């Protein structure tokens, strides 16, 4: 059995979890089943999540229902996963901060190694050979997990989520696990919703307009803001922009920011360092706007305009207005 931690996002199985379920199905051998583990606050409506799990070929969904799970505590979540996963041969989560954190707890509790950011894996008895992203995806490491179960997180957007060909119904098993007091020492005491744009909307956006050093200063974002609004997209920025304090960190795309996977990414005045490419390489189509025709962002793009973003974007906006 392969156990997958499924995170809940807007009442559905999170995108990274759909990716993990797809990956798990690929790992499952003959007669092997995929089971999902969902931990959520009591009273959360999980019917759509269960439906998503079934669509991805999950045979059984373990749902934990305890009053102690009313606010997030990684150790408690890991404890639930530990029990539900039982004697699974592989325990997998999507590559979100939550998924990585919970699996790190689980691996420590079981005194087993864990591999983060896997992109492929082959399980052979008690040895798993896998490839994973290091240095923000600029380098691929081949490593061996000489332990069973294999505990791994999947690199974000490394796998295209694909529902199962012939899904069945998923059996739901509800448990009320006892939570140890020690596992509640570190728990969320309050959540303040973000005002305006946030990182979550960036990671889900279908269109992202990016801006880098070429913006020139904190006042240089009028064009990208207008273009994003016009296209129904979201603004993302490079690390230098947030480091200089021109824009807030939650707008950062990159290894130390958000990993986006939009249909269209329009990076403006972004050179495309490894740090940034780590966050945007899953974009389906990239149209770069840059003064330097040799910049990595341009040479890795499908389309490019060579020019100053402050001259090109107003012309694009005027052109769009004509339509």
């Amino acid at each position, binding site marked *: 059995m392969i156990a997958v931690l499924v995170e809940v996002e807007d009442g559905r199985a999170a995108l990274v979890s759909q990716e993990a379920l797809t990956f798990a199905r690929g790992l499952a051998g003959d007669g092997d089943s995929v089971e999902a583990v969902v931990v959520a606050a009591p009273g959360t409506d999980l019917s759509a999540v269960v439906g998503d799990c079934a669509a991805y070929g999950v045979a059984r969904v373990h749902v934990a229902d305890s009053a102690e799970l009313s606010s997030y505590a990684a150790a408690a979540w890991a404890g639930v996963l530990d029990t539900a996963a039982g004697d699974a041969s592989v325990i997998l989560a999507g590559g979100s901060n939550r998924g990585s954190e919970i699996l790190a*707890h689980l691996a420590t509790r079981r005194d087993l190694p864990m591999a983060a950011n896997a992109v492929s894996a082959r399980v052979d008895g008690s040895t798993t050979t896998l490839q994973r992203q*290091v240095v923000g995806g600029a380098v691929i490491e081949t490593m061996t997990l000489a332990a069973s179960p294999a505990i791994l997180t999947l690199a974000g957007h490394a796998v295209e989520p694909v529902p199962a060909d012939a899904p069945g119904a998923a059996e739901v098993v509800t448990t009320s696990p006892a939570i140890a007091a020690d596992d509640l020492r570190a728990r969320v005491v309050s959540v303040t919703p973000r005002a305006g744009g946030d990182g979550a909307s960036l990671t889900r956006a279908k269109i992202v307009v990016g801006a880098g050093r070429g913006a020139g200063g904190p006042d240089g974002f009028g064009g990208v803001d207008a273009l994003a609004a016009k296209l129904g997209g979201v603004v993302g920025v490079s690390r230098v922009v947030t480091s200089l304090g021109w824009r807030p960190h939650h707008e950062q795309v990159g290894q130390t920011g958000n990993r986006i996977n939009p249909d269209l990414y329009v990076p403006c005045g972004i050179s495309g360092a490894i740090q940034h490419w780590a966050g945007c390489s899953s974009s389906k189509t990239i149209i770069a706007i840059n003064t330097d025709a040799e910049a990595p962002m341009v040479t890795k793009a499908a389309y490019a305009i060579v020019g100053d973003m402050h001259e090109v974007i107003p*012309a694009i906006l005027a052109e769009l207005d004509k339509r």
Partner: protein
Amino acid sequence: MTNVLVCIKRVPEATGEVSLTADGRGIDGTHSGYTTSPNEECAVELAVQAADGGQATVLTLGPGDAIDQLRSALAVGMTDGIHIEADSDAYGPGDVAREIAAAVRAREAGGTAYDLILLGNDAADTGDFQVGVRLAYALGQPVVTGIQNVSVAGGVATLTGEGPDGTETYEVSLPAVVTILEGGVEPRYPSVMGRMKAKKAPVEVLAPSAAPAGSGRESLTVPPPPPNQVQVLGTGPAAAPAFVSTLVELGVIR
């Protein structure tokens, strides 16, 4: 006053092309140079703020040259260093956590107990995402990961970070382990005075407490860059119509 330990890692700069060592098992930073992981630069800043006159120790496990990264942290306000001298590539995340725990216990035996231990959330090179969690379990302390701001008062750390539904706050009794993500604070630059102090600050050199189990790494490869197939739509503002018609072709607009 809070006694703070911050753990940092020397990593190769990775802004341009990444090159591998001759045996294909390591990243060669000879030309790119080395730095401290960005998350840990923020951890150092938070440690300096949280210490507030208490002991502020910076620790690394790494080769002799990692003294450079320790000195950088000492130059911005850390008070002393611990250098576990070892080839960090030979150490897996479990090994590193065990070595840090051993150093913490040795300090405790010597009369210094740390109230707060900060680490980077994930190293810029290996991205293992687990040393802080393993360390916390080894020490029997609570752990919170992915934190961007830390404040300490009355034996409790108030921690904030970005969660899926907004900004999350934790209140954790000390001692505790916290891993830091970039974005909450701006690391300060060292002053000339700071650099002078850093040269004289005490750095305790420790040998590893046990042989490493290793990380399981077999080899590294640098994927070839995608072939340059860029289609240049034009130069300057004159390219705007081509941009718009490309959006139409892509189905972004009608």
